């Protein structure tokens, strides 16, 4: 049994302009100790999916449907108390911007201790000891002194380390990282990713890595979910996704990776804008931007089909022959660019 199983998750927000379908029928699962990458553009619903799993979407104007099983236990729309007991202990979250994700008027130590104290019946002194210990794990130098510092006294990378420490302090089984390196500069990004890999080996927690960076996914994840317009459009093992992608959007994502071995006047891009989740296009939500769109794409949403193995799922109306030809041509074109370069 998977540790986390998300089945047919729908998240809708009521707004003044109408209902925003942020997540529509998303399913995936994460095994113990493994890493799942969720990839997509801004607004593809990847963050909302994870906030829904954590129970952190604003309950007052959101509707959640489907099922989220954590160790076989239903947690979607669970009672607030039950949800609080799970958050921080069984699963925790690292957010995108470490600059704003820490309370500016409380010391780092206080905020780490709080994470311990709300779940465990221990003294503040013991909680503090645990806080220093975990800060050492995330490689904060002089942790026993820095524990009393305030967030503004830390650099961005150090703050993200503190956020990671806070997520790990109660030994969760699952850590959801929502673009943890996006706000950091490139050298720090690699440090943080390596740190997360080391910690995963040490703590054996599963990770859901939300990102729009396919490079990060290739490095960390075992399985990848590609999201577009609030839906899963492709789901595969990481090798399979990079070698035989089946969906035009994934082709676009792979094609838009900047490469150092190729001279490119312009970076490849997927033209057009992500779809409005308020009034999504009919049929396949990618059809307005898809260079291969057919009439059927504008009328019917393609089902999530299996490609050879049940582990590789995708949505596309193109037949297998055509998809293979197009991907082969794209790869040939990319290879040609390499030779030219």
């Amino acid at each position, binding site marked *: 049994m998977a540790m986390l199983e998300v089945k047919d998750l729908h998240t809708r927000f009521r707004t003044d302009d109408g209902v925003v379908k942020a997540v529509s029928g998303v399913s995936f699962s994460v095994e113990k100790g493994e890493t799942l990458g969720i990839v997509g553009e801004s607004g593809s619903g990847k963050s909302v999916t994870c906030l829904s799993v954590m129970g*952190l979407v604003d309950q007052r104007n959101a509707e959640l449907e489907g099922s989220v099983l954590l160790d076989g236990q239903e947690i979607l729309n669970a009672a607030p108390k039950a949800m609080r007991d799970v958050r921080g202990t069984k699963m*925790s979250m690292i957010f995108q911007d470490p600059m704003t994700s*820490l309370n500016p008027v409380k010391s780092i130590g206080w905020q780490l201790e709080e994470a311990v104290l709300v779940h465990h019946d221990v003294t503040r002194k013991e909680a503090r000891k645990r806080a220093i210990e975990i800060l050492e794990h995330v490689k904060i130098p002089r942790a026993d002194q820095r524990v009393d510092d305030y967030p*503004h006294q830390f650099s961005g990378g150090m703050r993200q380390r503190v*956020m990671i420490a806070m997520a790990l302090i109660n030994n969760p089984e699952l850590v959801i990282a929502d673009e943890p390196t996006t706000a950091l500069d490139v050298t720090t990004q690699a440090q943080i990713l390596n740190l997360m890999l080391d910690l995963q080996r040490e703590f054996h927690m599963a990770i859901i890595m939300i990102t729009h960076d396919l490079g990060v996914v290739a490095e960390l994840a075992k399985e990848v979910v590609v999201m577009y317009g609030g839906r899963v459009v492709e789901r595969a093992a990481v090798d399979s996704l990079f070698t035989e992608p089946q969906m035009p959007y994934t082709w676009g994502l792979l094609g838009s990776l900047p490469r150092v071995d190729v001279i490119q006047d312009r970076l490849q891009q997927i033209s057009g804008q992500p779809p409005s989740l308020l009034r999504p296009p009919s049929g396949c939500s990618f059809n307005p931007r898809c260079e291969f769109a057919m009439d059927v794409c504008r009328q019917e949403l393609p089902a999530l089909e299996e490609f050879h193995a049940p582990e590789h799922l995708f949505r596309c109306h193109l037949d297998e022959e055509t998809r293979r030809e197009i991907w082969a041509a794209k790869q040939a074109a990319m290879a040609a660019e390499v030779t030219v370069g």
Partner: protein
Amino acid sequence: MGTFLIRRTFWAIFLFLAATIISYVIFFMIPGDPAQLACGRACTQEDVARVRHFLGLDTPVYQQYGQFLWNLVGHQNLGRSFTNRQNVNYLIGQAAPVTAALVFGGAVFWLALSIPIGVLSALRPRSLLDRASMIFVLIGISAHPVWIGLLLSFFFGYKLGWTPIAGYCNFFGAAPGSDCGGPVEWAYHMILPWCTFMLLFAALYVRLIRANVMETLNEDYVRTARAKGAPSSRVLVHHVLRNSMLPVVTILGMDIGLALGGAIFTETIFNLHGLGQQVITSYNQLDLPVIMGIVVFSTIAVIVFNLIVDITYAFLDPRIRLS
């Protein structure tokens, strides 16, 4: 801390000089003859001239200002009233406690009302309470203190007889010529003025607190706190309130400082002999020393309260250091 204090001291001196000089200039630009007013209607030309000389009004303005500064700095003396020769230090010593009682008591009242309402309506936007409080805010902001004061005085004081209609009682024992005194009588007489103040300021503060709390609720660190599994009450107290009250401290300090200069309308309605009423009386009599005394007092109040705000702020917000 050292440089901070030095800079603040210079700033305070500058502010004090600016406030007093501007008051002097304005006073002498106003048409009217203080000597004539002080002397009375029956005075002859020679009498007025004698009074003018006696009050020092026949010397140039800068000389008068210099004399005023010298008396104040050298002797801590604000001079004597033009009209009744009373010591200005004494007059202010009588009036300031009344105004202070009004302002501080009122501040307690308006905070006690606006913090819960502001927080609750931020937590439940568009709820019945939120809408009701917005109507209250609109009334409070639009209504004039005189109108609020008169209504309160009429209904609770005159119609229902629950409170005194007007007047002031000393906190410590009865003042000479007055038959009431003591903390209970004092508070009993102050209830309506406090309520007037409360309605005026609570409206502004409800808006301010509501906006701040709503903004803070959307902060990332509040989401972090919830992601830790902290209960909502804990998130509210430790993460939301602490941060959203920071700007309120600033505004509160400035409002108290300003209000100490005299709550003219409220004092007039409830016949409280505070600084506001005193300044109106003195202005009508062109009683320069008393006016200047009150200007000095309120300038100091503003300076002191801004200093208190800054020091409090440094305690509340670790990002700010006094340097």
